């Protein structure tokens, strides 16, 4: 009885130990075989590119001629390039306004869906559909709906007596227009927050109600802390995405034949990087720009992580 009940994981003699070692080695080999696609892909398409991009950033390279080593000149040039400054300003402007708005709108819609109860499925579908629209088409919709003279937005605004701005041509209004249309695709964040809301245990609300807590107290003392993890996730993911915003703005304001628009206002960092790399073939300079972007994103993500320690409640943390 006593011998049968000992756990099989505790071998009593050396032959069993050796067998275990052999099986573990075979195990490792099998595991490496399964993950080998990723290892190859990582080495070829991630690790080497990172190293090579670091090297390129110290060179002058136009694809046709060999890279010419110029030390830190590219970084020096970036500091003095007014377009880099402009692109950074545009990108920060967009990120600082878009991310909080995006999170707030997502939360408001998720709360609405949560209150809708059994009809939530239908509305959720409606909220998610824009997310399926290809970003190129979103960029085109921006030009059409926000058109200053006869676009839908200004037509609706004129009904209530507001003389809408020239969203797509007035430099002051180009970025607000891009931010507004980006809110159209909050769908996936709404789904994440709705799932988080539905995971909040009902008992918490029941006992709070017994204690006489009102709606505001329930929202701020129960709901928001309980979904703060999901909120933080959306916040970080969208900040990283906002720093790299490209397609909608590029579609609407850049490209062949499009020089009439005041596109300085829409020159985001990745757009300028793309132009430098693939339109002007300054691959060394574009690589240096990529590293600056990487640094900025790392700093912001680290800051947000530090903040999250103070504001985010993770279940199980205190148990």
């Amino acid at each position, binding site marked *: 009885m006593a011998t049968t009940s000992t756990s099989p994981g505790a071998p009593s003699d050396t032959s069993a130990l050796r067998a275990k070692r052999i099986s573990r080695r075979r*195990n490792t080999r*099998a*595991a*490496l*075989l*399964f*993950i080998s*696609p*990723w*290892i190859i*892909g*990582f080495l070829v*398409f991630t690790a080497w*590119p*990172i190293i090579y*991009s670091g090297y*390129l950033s110290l060179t002058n390279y136009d694809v046709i001629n060999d890279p010419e080593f110029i030390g830190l000149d590219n970084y020096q040039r970036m500091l003095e390039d007014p377009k880099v400054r402009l692109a950074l300003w545009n990108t920060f402007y967009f990120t600082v306004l878009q991310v909080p708005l995006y999170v707030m709108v997502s939360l408001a819609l998720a709360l*609405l869906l949560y*209150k*809708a*109860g*059994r009809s939530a*499925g*239908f509305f959720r579908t*409606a*909220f998610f*559909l*824009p997310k*399926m629209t*290809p*970003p*190129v*088409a979103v*960029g*085109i*919709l921006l*030009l*059409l*709906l926000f*058109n200053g003279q*006869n*676009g*839908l937005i200004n037509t609706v605004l004129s009904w209530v007596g507001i003389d809408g701005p020239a969203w797509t041509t007035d430099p002051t209004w180009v970025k607000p227009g891009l931010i507004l249309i980006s809110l*159209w695709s909050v769908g996936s964040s709404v*789904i994440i927050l709705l*799932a988080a809301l539905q995971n909040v245990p009902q008992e918490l609300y029941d006992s709070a109600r017994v204690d006489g807590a009102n709606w505001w107290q329930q929202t701020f003392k129960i709901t928001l802390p309980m979904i703060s993890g999901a909120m933080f*996730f959306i916040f970080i993911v969208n900040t990283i995405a906002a*720093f790299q915003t490209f397609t909608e703005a590029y*579609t609407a304001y850049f490209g062949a034949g*499009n020089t*009439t*628009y005041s596109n300085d206002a829409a020159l985001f960092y*990745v757009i300028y990087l*793309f132009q430098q790399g*693939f339109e002007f073939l300054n691959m060394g300079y574009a690589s240096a*720009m*990529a590293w600056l*972007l*990487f640094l900025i994103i790392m700093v912001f*993500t680290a800051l947000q992580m530090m903040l999250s320690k103070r504001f985010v409640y993770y279940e199980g943390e205190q148990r």
Partner: protein
Amino acid sequence: MTAGAVGTEHVDDAGAPDVPGTPPTRVPPRPRKPKITVGKILTFVALISVTLLFIYPFIWLLSASFKPRGEVFDNKILPETFTFDNYINVWQEAPMLLWLWNTVFVTVLAAVTVTISSALVAWGFSYFRFRGRNFLFGIVLATMMLPGAVTMIPQFLIWNNLGMVNTLTPMWAQNLFGSAFYIFLLRQFFLGLPRDLFEAARIDGANNWTIFARVAAPLTKPALIITLIFEFQAAWTDLMRPLIYLRDSDKFTVPRGLKALLDQYGFGGNWHWEIVVTASVITTVPMIILFFLGQRHFVQGIATTGTKG
């Protein structure tokens, strides 16, 4: 690990009442629930207004695609002059059929290869225990944080050296090596499977491959479908890769072609917005169909990534 499984179940619950009319069992019935309150009416008014706001651009676009050139911007829901001409002209103005074929080719290959490769890798990370596993998986997660801009130029140089710029290969071939996000996602699902199943299969004589292919993969079918449709959407809608790699019009994917049409007919002197609008509809409709086919999987997949984050 158990938290993951619980999260998925909750998500699945939420995904159930997709079809309006089927009685869902989302929230356990609360006692003494008032029938109709002011708050409820306000909630629904808000929901319906927001829905209109979200759906209206589609209606606008679809309606405009049936209007003649002069009426595109008239902002009427129903076209005053109803015409199919745009749908005939767009095929003549641009090689739409070729673009659609290119996109289907790229999209199917991208989705299928990334699903298979990511599943293999995810399985390697979730089933086996080996030294360095957590370190390697840490690298997988770290690559998700890396901005695409850093690797974009060297990757282009690789494909350039292989002579594959201006071919469709760079659009999908990197998916042969798995993708960090899907590896992460699929691993979560694999970890949710009971280990006893695999031990039982092993006793029955299954080897590592058959355990993966015959036991684990069929059990994670929903997750594999999620990966497939996510990547299908990502590949279909991508503009940056085609901008970098595709030069000739006969190689374009639909988004790249749509951008070219916008440059030609939107601005650039040759104003034919009705062509741009119609091509936008043609680019978007396959994604709408994809969503309605895989709605449950989309919702579940997105909710899972959020709750695992």
